[in-house]
């Protein structure tokens, strides 16, 4: 008998020789559904969703109970619901999951933020709330944000939408067939869409193709391998590394700018990325040119 696939057995004194807990004890036991690592992965993943605090607490308590670690629950501390939490968030996840699994197109309104941080639907130039239609392909966390990767019918590329900003999400009952399949966005036709490769080439989720990018970095490889698993690195001297990555240009611009303060990264190619960085540098130099004398950025330039 293994109820719900869980082994039941006996712990003997000899089994506890290397026990990690402070108060191990022999006797009958039932194997937990989750081990400790699984428990933490699930609980921390749930916390990442920034969902309703009460709902999260119940969910995490279940995970801890299934790992036989309910006594550790208090160590998690207090969770709070985000101030502008979208009450449709959990329903949206269920609906998006079904739409992805069954390959249904969706309709929705998409929110932006009001001045006080309240989520409000996007409007067109005439003040009418915009309604969107999309083919949903995948839900995914990236850089702490929860995205739906989809094809919005008004565009010809992939879009990355924040799940917490959906309102009035629905599946069209009469016609919910996809306009485009995911594979139609594959840069290598005839092969299945490779999510790992696609996201690995985008340190920030954004469309446009990935291109070879050549750069040099000094003293550390952490900014490289933290973000680009497939980087090709050659050490030039004690302090300098030559690096090739394949990545989306705009996403790489954002990635490089975050390390500008450290002055360790130099983009060598493509020239278009170097031009953009130079332009951004000139803009910042101009914006802050007079800070020394006035204490404020120069907004007239």
């Amino acid at each position, binding site marked *: 008998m293994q109820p719900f696939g869980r082994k039941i057995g006996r712990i003997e004194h000899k089994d506890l020789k290397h026990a990690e807990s402070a108060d191990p004890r022999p006797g*009958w036991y*039932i194997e937990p559904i989750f081990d400790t690592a699984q428990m933490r992965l699930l609980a921390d993943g749930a916390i990442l969703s920034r969902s309703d605090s009460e709902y999260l607490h119940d969910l995490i308590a279940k995970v801890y109970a299934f790992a036989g670690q309910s006594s550790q629950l208090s160590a998690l501390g207090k969770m709070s619901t985000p101030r502008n939490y979208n009450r449709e968030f959990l329903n949206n996840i269920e609906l998006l999951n079904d739409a992805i699994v069954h390959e249904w197109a969706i309709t929705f309104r998409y929110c932006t933020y009001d001045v006080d941080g309240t989520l409000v639907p996007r409007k067109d130039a005439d003040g009418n709330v915009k309604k969107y239609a999309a083919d949903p392909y995948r839900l995914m966390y990236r850089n702490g944000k929860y995205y739906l990767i989809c094809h919005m019918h008004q565009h010809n590329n992939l879009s990355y939408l924040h799940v917490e900003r959906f309102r009035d999400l629905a599946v069209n009952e009469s016609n919910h067939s996809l306009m485009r399949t995911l594979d139609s966005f594959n840069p290598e036709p005839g092969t299945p869409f490779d999510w790992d490769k696609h996201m690995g080439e985008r340190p920030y989720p954004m469309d446009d193709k990935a291109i070879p990018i050549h750069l040099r970095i000094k003293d550390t490889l952490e900014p490289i391998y933290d973000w680009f698993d497939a980087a090709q690195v050659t050490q030039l001297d004690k302090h300098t590394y030559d690096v090739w990555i394949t990545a989306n240009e705009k996403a790489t611009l954002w990635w490089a700018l975050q390390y500008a303060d450290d002055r360790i990264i130099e983009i060598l190619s493509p020239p278009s990325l170097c031009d953009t960085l130079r332009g951004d540098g000139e803009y910042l130099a101009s914006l802050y040119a007079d800070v020394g004398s006035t204490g404020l950025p120069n907004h007239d330039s």
Partner: protein
Amino acid sequence: MAVSHYAAVSTAEIVIIILELLDKNTDREHGITAVWIANQLGVTEKTVRSHLPYVAGNAAIRS
């Protein structure tokens, strides 16, 4: 869960209660003894031991 006076409880119910006790009180480094289970159930240790084969499978039973 502390339950007492189990004189009329069926084997199936005792098996389920033992499973609940195991689920709530054990992990890979913390076991519970037949005596402790018996005290929780309000039955004799012998009763618990006679039900453990249903819970764990005969091969797992040791004294």
